[in-house]
């Protein structure tokens, strides 16, 4: 039986999808701005962050209202909780895109330190993870979600490799320090975006299974090495 408030849930779901699309676009544009040295595009990314923030607030308000007035249970309750968590992750993805864009503006003042190959590759993986995580939300494909969780290690590995490479630049040529640091932070931002994609994927599995897979063997995703100075424990 259809209920008069089912449309509210549909609206909630579509807001979340919209927010997902906005944050994916923000990351993609920030990376495009980096590769093409497009300062204007980077500035647009910074300006558009409000949109993602606003969606997060709307989603939270809608979730609280729905939980209070509609007393959801089972899958519906999980959807609302997962929606709130995912929107928080997406908001952080948006913040990372903004961070990258701000660094692109600063980097544009100097010639590129090296051709940008690894960063776009890493961002490509992170974006794919993010898109797959959001897709699971539409089609409930658990396998895809688990695959996202497993790919997190790839991004971590590139991040560590870049860290080593950029460290050696700095040691050899101190004049590159400021640019190398900006790139290290960009790398770190991308690594974080992949973490958020992983969180979202885990939340989607919780949505479909009702079982929390965080910190379980199924999604072992962190390398054991402690060598990466740029890697912090996830929240």
């Amino acid at each position, binding site marked *: 039986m259809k*209920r*008069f408030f089912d449309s509210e849930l549909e609206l909630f779901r579509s807001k979340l999808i919209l927010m997902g699309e906005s944050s994916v676009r923000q990351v993609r544009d920030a990376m495009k701005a980096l590769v093409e040295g497009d300062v204007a595009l980077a500035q647009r990314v910074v300006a558009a962050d409000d949109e993602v923030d606003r969606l997060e607030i709307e989603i939270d*308000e809608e979730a*609280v*209202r729905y939980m*209070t007035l509609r007393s959801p249970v089972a899958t519906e309750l999980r959807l609302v909780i997962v929606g709130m968590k995912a929107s928080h992750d997406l908001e952080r993805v948006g913040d990372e895109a903004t961070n990258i864009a701000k660094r692109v503006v600063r980097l544009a003042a100097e010639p590129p330190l090296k051709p940008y190959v690894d960063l776009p590759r890493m961002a490509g993986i992170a974006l794919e993870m993010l898109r797959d995580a959001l897709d699971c939300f539409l089609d409930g494909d658990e396998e895809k979600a688990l695959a996202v969780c497993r790919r997190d290690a790839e991004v971590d590995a590139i991040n560590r490799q870049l860290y080593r490479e950029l460290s050696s630049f700095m040691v050899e040529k101190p004049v590159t320090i400021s640019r190398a640091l900006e790139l290290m932070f960009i790398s770190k931002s991308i690594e974080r975006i992949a973490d958020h994609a992983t969180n979202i994927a885990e939340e989607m599995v919780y949505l479909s299974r009702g079982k929390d897979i965080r910190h379980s063997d199924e999604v072992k995703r962190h390398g054991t090495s402690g060598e990466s100075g740029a890697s912090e424990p996830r929240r």
Partner: protein
Amino acid sequence: MPSPLLPSSLGSAEGRNPPVVRRPVIEIADLDFHYGTSQALHDISLSIAEKEVTAFIGPSGCGKSTLLRCLNRMNDLIDGARISRGAIRIRGVDIHQRDVEVMELRKRVGMVFQKSNPFPKSIYENVVYGLRLQGVRDKTRLDEAVETSLRGAALWDEVKDRLHASGLSLSGGQQQRLCIARTIAIEPEVILMDEPCSALDPIATAKVEELIHQLKLRYTIVIVTHNMQQAARCSDRTAFFYLGKLIEFAPTKDIFMTPSNPQTEAYVSGRFG
């Protein structure tokens, strides 16, 4: 920027009673009500907005039904029951004035009771009962009223092939919707419902709630319910009563998300009542 989780009204909760009701159909002003010497309602003031659902909630005995019955003068039938102060105005007219025609009033303000009470007659006759009382004889007009009202009560598809079966042969939920059809057949302006779902199972309840949602496009609805989730789901505004007093009256969202009165909060959280 306000905190995303809390509506901006929280900080100024004290200042939001009573809410501004645009185009009120019913205005209750400073109402005291007595059964003999015992006072059942104390100084009630509240407005019922047009084409909205207003819910009355509160523990049993707090006076919800008493107030509801005041709205179409059903209390006139009770010995010693009287309004001792204040007034109720519908579209500006004091309904307790001498020259108000009570039958006319009850035509405008229909009532659906807690226990569905179909007459031991056919489904058809149940629906047209009020029209027959009004002297309508025209068969075509009665037939039309039956179909429109049963459709309006979301019952038509279930009973269209057995309109002449007894109303009592229907399930509890169907009987309740039949009573709603009977009420809307006389085209009231306001529908009062006193715990219309308390005898129904969850599915039948959901159907009635769905129906309430449709009915409010055309009618002004006041519903008494002891089911808080129902008030939360169905109503636009909620009035919380306790011991014959109106404790808080606000948009339903505020009553359930950020009640301004601690007693309201305790009640909607299920901590008393």
